Each structure stands twice: as structure tokens, then as C-alpha cells.
């Protein structure tokens, strides 16, 4: 289990939220200069690849 924050567009948010390996909480919608929506999110991850990431 690891926990971190990241910024993502709406497609990345959807991909990640589709899986039980991640619990994704939207912290805020970020200002965007394009039609795409961007978010800062908090992620709780239970996947094994979390061990290979910088925290």
C-alpha cells in the first residue's frame, strides 16, 4: 500500500479509477487553458509496482 498525490487529466483519472488497485480521491480541479479538465488527486495504491516508484 502506498499513498501519493498527482496531477492528471480526465482520461488518466478515468483509467486509474477503473481499477480496484487504486482508490482515487479528487482534491481539486486545476485551472486549464484547454477544454481538457485537469485534477489534483490523492491515490491509495495497493499494486506491487508501487515498490519501484519514488515516494
Amino acid at each position, binding site marked *: 500500500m*502506498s499513498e*501519493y498525490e*498527482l*496531477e*492528471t*487529466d*480526465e*482520461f*488518466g*483519472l*478515468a*483509467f*486509474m*479509477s*477503473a*481499477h480496484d*488497485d487504486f482508490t482515487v480521491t479528487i482534491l481539486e480541479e*486545476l485551472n*486549464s*487553458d*484547454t*477544454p*481538457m*479538465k*485537469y485534477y489534483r488527486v490523492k*491515490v491509495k*495504491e495497493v*499494486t506491487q*509496482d*508501487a515498490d*519501484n*516508484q*519514488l*515516494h
Partner: protein
Amino acid sequence: MLGSGRRGSQAGQRLLRGLLDLLHYSDEPREVIDPQKHLTNKNIRGAERDLNYPTRMTPFREEPEVIYQPYPAQSYWGDENYIPEAGLGDYVHTSRQPEEGFYDVSEDMDKFYMIAREEIMDMAKTHGKQLSPQEVHRLATGRAMGIAKEQGYLGLSNRKFRPNVYTQFEAVVPDLIEYLGKVDNE
């Protein structure tokens, strides 16, 4: 084709046949909506351009260097219920496509995102690269989109978070181009 007619009112019938009328806005009429040109558009800035940002997977000065850039170019479309943001342009290009041709990323039934993460983590391990969660997610999102393209999908949908927006991977010749702005004598 440049026309001025309003969109048909048979959306219900088209939906029954599984067809979508997708709309792409621009500030000039375009014979082809080419996703390769999307990221060179001066109006596309900041985070949206970051999707295509290449990542060096090998340590600095190590040769041969491996640069990873998995994001597939896409054009962006709205369906008939999409309310365009200001500044997208007054020319609307319409393309009719089968709904089943779009991969819903908010379901990710075939786990493309998870497959992509595994590929990226394997690649990082091979090259001794430490990736931040932000980098892993950005690369995995781009790679998962690329897998959808390789699997033959026309593009992506996002029913949960942006139900009226679609992307398309290939260049599209619009069925119809309409001008929504006012003409001088109006």
C-alpha cells in the same frame, strides 16, 4: 463540404443503430481533422502538451539512449450533447461513427492501463530508472491509449468523467462542415 443546415433531429434513431454524430470545432474549416496536427496547434498548451512529452528511460549520458513517448496523437470530439467551451472556434465538423468503436477508459474492461503500468515498470527496471508516481501514471495513460489504438479502436470515450467527449486516433474526413458564427449582414 461546407454547409449551413442544422443538425438532424433523428438522434434517437441513430443511437438505436449505435451511431454517434461527433463534432469537432476549429477556427477555420478543415478538409481533414488530423490528430498529428493537434499537438502542434498553438492553442494547445501546458498540461495537454505534456501528454506527449518524451521520457528518457536510460541514465544520463548512457548510450544508446532510450526515449519513451507512448502517447498516440488524437483529435478531440464532442457528441450532440457537448457544450463547447469558449474559444474552440466557429467551424464545426461532423463525423458519424459507430459507438462500439470507442474504448471506454472509465471501465477499462481489458485492463489496458494495468498492462501499460506493468510494461513501464518492467522497462524502468531494465534500465535502472526510478520513476515517480506522476511519471508512471502519465506514461501508463499514454501507453494504455496506444494499446487501445493497436487493438483497432477508433478512439476513446470516458463515460464516467466526461460522457460527451471522444477522441479519434486516425485522420478523419468530416461528413459535414458548418459555420456557426454570424455573417456580416446579420
